[in-house]
């Protein structure tokens, strides 16, 4: 086991990504699904930073992307939670299977 580098980081981020995916697939509560999505976003951020660090260390694009992702994630989380709360108000539950009025 040598010094941790790009590959280790990529392993972490990939694992994190698929843990998020697993959560996305298995969870039924909307908030927990949102949490899984946050994990996925985080794994992407980590990738950006890692590539920025190990492949193009003289550039800053990875940083910017990460920043924007964090900003958009924040907005998205806020919106999602607004929707979730609204859904809770009307349906009294936030189970994904409960909201199916628009099916078919």
């Amino acid at each position: 086991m040598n010094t941790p580098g790009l590959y280790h980081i990529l392993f972490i981020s990939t694992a994190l990504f698929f843990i998020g995916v697993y959560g996305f697939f298995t969870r039924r509560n909307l908030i927990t699904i949102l949490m899984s999505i946050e994990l996925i976003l985080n794994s992407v951020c980590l990738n950006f930073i890692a590539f920025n660090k190990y492949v193009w260390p003289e550039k800053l694009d990875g940083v910017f992307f990460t920043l924007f992702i964090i900003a958009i994630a924040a907005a998205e989380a806020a919106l999602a939670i607004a929707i979730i709360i609204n859904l809770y108000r009307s349906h009294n539950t936030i189970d994904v299977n409960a909201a199916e009025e628009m099916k078919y």
Partner: protein
Amino acid sequence: MPELILILLIPIMPFAAFLLLGLANGNFIKRWAGAIGTGAILVSAGAALLTAYDYFFVYGGSGGAYRKILVTEYEWLQFTPEISIKMGLLLDPVAVMMMVVISFISLMVHSYSICYLKGEQRFNIYFSYLGLFTFSMLALVMSSNIFQMYIFWELVGVSSFLLIGFYYQKPSAVAAAKKAFIITRFADLGLLIGILILAFEAKSLDFEAIIGQFGHGKSASVSTSSAWLGISTISWAMLLVFIGGAGKSAMFPLHVWLPDAMEGPTPVSALIHAATMVVAGVFLVARLFPVYYFSAPEILNLIAYVGVFSALIAAIIACTQTDIKRVLAYSTMSQIGFMMFSLGVSGFGEEGLGFTASQFHLFTHAFFKALLFLCAGLVIHEVHSNEVSKMGGLRKSMPLTHISFLIACLAIAGIPPFAGFFSKEEILLAAWERNKPVYWIALFTSALTAFYMFRLYFLIFRNSNKHLHQPEHREGSAGQMVPLFVLAAGSVVLGLIPFGRFVSSDGRPLATELHLVFSIAPVLLAILGVSTAAWLYNAPGNRPQEVSQRLGNLYKAAYHKFYIDEVWLFLTKKVIMNGIGKPAAWFDKNVVNALVNFSGNSTIGLASKIKKLQSGKVQLYGMVYLFTVIASVLIIIFFINRN
């Protein structure tokens, strides 16, 4: 030379009457419909007589023979440059003779009908239909083109349908009209196919061309070139054409419509179902006689047997029927059988006695049979029933009708010197000369004819002991009696016309003479028939029943018309309706339609299955998506990107 206007007038006048009476709806027209119709026919009949005179004595003959004269012709519908329907007027002895008969009998019937149908709701419609019929029949006999003839053939059929069904609220009349139309239509199918074959064999539809091609001695070799089932194509065509004629002329087994057709008004029966339309088949065979004789002799032979068989069977049935009009109908069928077999046994040219005799019999028969029907109409009018059992002893209350009926009966029985005697003698002579078996059957049939006609006569006019009749039985009005007298006079004297001089198979005058020795047997048999009838029916007691019981099954079979109606009913109801129609409808509903519905339903079913995939469950979508991505990536890596 023929005058076009005069000849055109003959069919045009009844047609004009048809249009005027059928379309106009005013009170004036309604009241005077009879007079208008009769007037139109009067003009037509006058023109016909004039034309006949001109034709026979002025311009028709040339070089000792009567020519066929094509007065006018117009191309109506072209199929190929050679084959086209033309509307033409053709004059030849047969056509001219028919023309005279039709317009004359029609005139009589029109005049008779004015009083007969007085007060009828649809008085004008009746005369309109009569006009249509007369027009079509006249145009039929004057046709120059076989397809033109077919056209008017159909029109005659439909006017017959309309007139039989004139009392349209009577279910039996409607049924009879339908039966008549459908059976003749079925026969016309044969005629149509025959025409199709003939048209492409002869490369023309004109009578002249067809006869020119097949109606002479040399044509036999040409026509046998192509054959099917051992019979040449042209023979097949002529057989099919004959089937058409047999349908119209009520030959066995297509005769079943004729007795039922008596549901129509009696004058109609006199005109259509006795004198004119039913002899159209005879006319058709006569028209194409040279083709039959030279190119399809086997069919001509068949015609002889069909004719004589029909004559016999109809005569037997006639002996047992109790409805006056039905007896007359069977008698008509029997007499047409005489005409048919006479054509069948005829030779050509010098030996064409049968042809002449057939036409002669057609001519005389028209008179005495129309007379019989008109008398029957008067009787029915008085008694209010068709059944002979309700009649009897009418001699006293209707003396003039009685005399007329008696004359007609004598004429049809072949008692000299009435008209029927001469024509029937010629027919029998022709049969004697050329076909002995036919002769013997015909001889027997003519004796039967005398028997059943006088059976009718005795039952109606004598034999008064059965029922008592009120004295107010009267004769018909003048409008009805005059036609009776005219026709009766015709039935007496017309036999003296030297018919062979005018009408013969090749247009040349044919000398016919009376063989007194030969006539003895038929006349004696006729007298035997009359006396048997007198013995059975003009005497007190129960002789008819005894005889019929003694005859047993034969009587029963004859009384039930040999069950031919039942056979037809079985064929149409059971075989065609249930055997073909129902399966077809079932097939359409349960196979073809079901296939369409199945394809629709299976689409809906498939869609509702697929619909489940659109569950709206994002997680499921995601999973499917991920699996798909993985699978595609694997495929790309391991299969496509390998090299």
